[in-house]
């Protein structure tokens, strides 16, 4: 069944180009001129996919078309479905923002999931059990996340440790830290008394505020936070001097260093930002789950990498961008949403997601 949309899509595009825009398709498409026609048509068709933008958006368009076809009797057409997709992809999306910065410098950050878990626990602990106001708790949690990111970045920049190793160590360490401060328990409104009984406390208002939908119940607050993170990172990458430093360091570290770019501080910035954004994601995760789970966010680092790669940012560094990551997040989000509204089993969903990531990346590699 799944061949239908693919063949339809392929059949549609070149045909419509020939029909609607005969001028640009030129005489090569005329009948009778048989031999050059197919090659010309094909090369102009493929040349559309030479621009990174089209290559990034094409998988998203493809997934949305699938969604329109398998709309689960109209569920896909309702705004609520899209709102939920955006909400569900927000946490890993925020991680993917930081991941994009790191990957552009030519590195990788495996610690984001664990730092998220630690920050979720820390935030819940401070605001539920210690009655901290959000004005104190949020900055402290953000600071803690940044510190862990900077620590990993320091190992990479100062001691020339491989990013994979340094952040792998941080991933294990931060998970341990999360379990240590929580005592291995989920931190929720049920507080364990010394005598073994539970006391139930009301969750602070901040939990409700952040896990809320605004604008007439149309957009979740975490989605707004996600989009704000995208905007923040976009400004950094596209508009600030340090963003250019990130690209140059990832593109050719030695050339950047010899041009007077402080490559070590550039790496600190990338991993520090990744830690900061992991903390933001951790807070969002805590308010969504209404608790701080020390196991929260495990394997999220892989989802974040998948989003970045899906968007077309190259793992070799030096290329890519924030808007690609936004597109990647939406592609993965829609994919999962479509599979779930069509009640595809989790086993098939995982296998399909894996296959589609491979297909999307292969597609982006296609060059003439």
């Amino acid at each position: 069944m799944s061949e239908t949309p693919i063949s339809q899509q392929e059949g549609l595009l070149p045909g419509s180009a020939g029909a609607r825009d005969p001028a640009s398709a030129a005489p090569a498409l005329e009948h009778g001129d048989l031999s050059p026609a197919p090659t010309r048509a094909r090369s102009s068709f493929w040349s559309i996919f030479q621009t990174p933008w089209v290559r990034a958006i094409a998988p998203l368009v493809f997934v949305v078309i699938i969604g329109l076809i398998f709309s689960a009797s109209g569920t896909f057409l309702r705004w609520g479905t899209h709102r939920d997709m955006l909400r569900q992809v927000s946490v890993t999306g925020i991680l993917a923002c930081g991941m994009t910065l790191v990957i552009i410098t030519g590195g990788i950050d495996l610690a984001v999931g664990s730092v998220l878990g630690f920050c979720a626990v820390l935030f819940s602990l401070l605001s539920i059990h210690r009655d901290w106001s959000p004005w104190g708790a949020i900055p402290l949690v953000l600071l803690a996340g940044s510190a862990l990111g900077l620590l990993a970045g320091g190992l990479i920049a100062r001691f020339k440790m491989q990013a994979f190793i340094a952040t792998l160590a941080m991933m294990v360490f931060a998970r341990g830290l999360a379990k240590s401060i929580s005592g291995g328990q989920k931190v929720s409104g049920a507080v364990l008394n010394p005598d073994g009984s539970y006391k139930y406390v009301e969750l602070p208002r901040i939990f409700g505020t952040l896990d809320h939908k605004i604008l007439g119940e149309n957009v979740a607050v975490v989605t707004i936070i996600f989009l704000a993170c995208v905007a923040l990172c976009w400004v950094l990458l596209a508009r600030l001097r340090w963003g250019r430093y990130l690209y140059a360091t990832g593109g050719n570290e030695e050339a950047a260093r010899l041009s007077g770019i402080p490559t070590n501080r550039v790496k600190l910035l990338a991993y520090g930002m990744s830690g900061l954004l992991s903390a933001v994601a951790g807070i969002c995760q805590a308010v969504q789950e209404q608790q701080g789970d020390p196991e929260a966010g495990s394997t999220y680092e892989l989802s974040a990498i998948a989003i970045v790669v899906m968007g077309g940012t190259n793992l070799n560094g030096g290329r890519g961008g924030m808007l690609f990551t936004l597109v990647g997040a939406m592609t993965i989000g829609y994919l999962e949403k479509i599979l779930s509204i069509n009640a595809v089993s989790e086993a098939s969903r995982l296998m399909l997601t894996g296959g589609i990531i491979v297909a999307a990346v292969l597609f982006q590699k296609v060059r003439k």
Partner: protein
Amino acid sequence: MTGETATAARVEMGAPLLSMAGISKSFTGVPVLRDVSFDLLPGEAHVLAGENGAGKSTLIKIAAGVHTEYEGQLVLYGRPTRFTSPHDATAQGISVIHQEMSLIDAMTVVDNMFLGRELTRKASARQWTDRPAQLRKAREFCAQLDLDIDLSQPVENYSLSIKNRIEIAKALAFNARIMVMDEPTSALAEPEVDRLFGLIGQLKERGCGIIYITHRLEEIYRIADRITVLRDGRHIGTAAARDLPEAELIRWMIGRELSEHFPERKTALGAERLRIEGLSVPDAGAASTGITRWLVQDVALSVRAGEIVGIAGLQGSGNSELLRGIFGAYGKLEHGKVSIDGKPFDVHSPRRSVRQGLAYLTSDRKGTGLVLGLDIAQNITLASLQAVSPAGWLSRSKERQVAERHVRALSIRSTGTTQEVATLSGGNQQKVALAKWIETQPRVLLLDEPTRGVDVGAKHEIYELMNEWTRAGFAILMITSEMPELLGLCDRIVVMHRGRVSAQFSRAEATQERILKAAMADMAA
């Protein structure tokens, strides 16, 4: 031609092990070897001489099976042969003792010696290496070379000189009859060199033939039975070492026609801009072995405003390392003093050097010069981003203005300032790299091979630009391996040999002979 008599004199030694005839080879249309002939007799050390870029390494790579596409004939032990791969050449008895070691540091001496040709117990169990047999064999070869070391230690535990001998033992283990040694002494101290030469004597007695490349005159006459000289990819001649006096050898090596026209240079020299005293750079790579080796040793020179000083030197002379050292690419300078315009210059890091008015064009523009994934404008502003990003915000329009100004001034041919530099031609890439440094408004420009891999038209444009910049008061210190550039462009020429300055010439004093002699001989400055 010139070699006829020499060959006749040695004919009693037997037929050549290797003979190459009419070898031609080009890279992307540029010929690097033209109709070159070369032969190697058993029991001789045959020195291959020539300046940088003469075609020596290309010839060697053909003999070692690295380049398999070429014109001409290669006859090995009397049979016409065409190697299919380096492995094939090794299997047929040709071993290359590399300048940069080809040993795998983390593996043991034994494993290195049999790498790719492991001994196996029997044919039916090919996957199982016969370790005891390997160890026995390895001991045997090492004993022959007086090499008394623990063979089960990783290679990284040994000094360069031991590694050198391990490589030779490895070649013996491979039954090599032809050994190619490319500057094997560049990293060795004098007693170790004697040892190596003793070893070469032994190898000759066994009937091995040795192709030896060196840039040291003294060494050539110590080791060579015959000498073949290449120049600009052509075979200039082959002669017995005793029939080829030093002066004649140098004449063979140079003789490059100075046909290129250089723009007329009216030099108006200003005050001293750059001054270097007692600068030395230790080899960080050799530090682990406990021996201090110097890449650059005790160099003193100065450049005045408006002056172009050229640094000549053959491979391994330390000239690139000198520029890197001045620029702070190795970090803080431990030995020596640098000053610019009379004020002490803090050699600390490239970042600080750029801020203090120093610019450094590397010789490898793709590897260390440009960020290929960024566009023209982004590369041009890379070293001076502060100027186009007030308060940290990049101003796209300012950046574009800066880039367009340079694109016009340097006539960089492109589709626009947003073209990726990876898609530019070599000459235009080089101009982008130069523009990056000019934009920093440096007081001193360090240029390492500014015209390497650049077409003739762009070369001339770069010469014109250099004249223009010196008129504006920049001081230029540049490395070039092109003799015509040294003689036609530079006001003064500093020659380096093995990390030291071996001679300095004014433009009037300089001749090709003098420069090459100073670049090859250990002599006082």
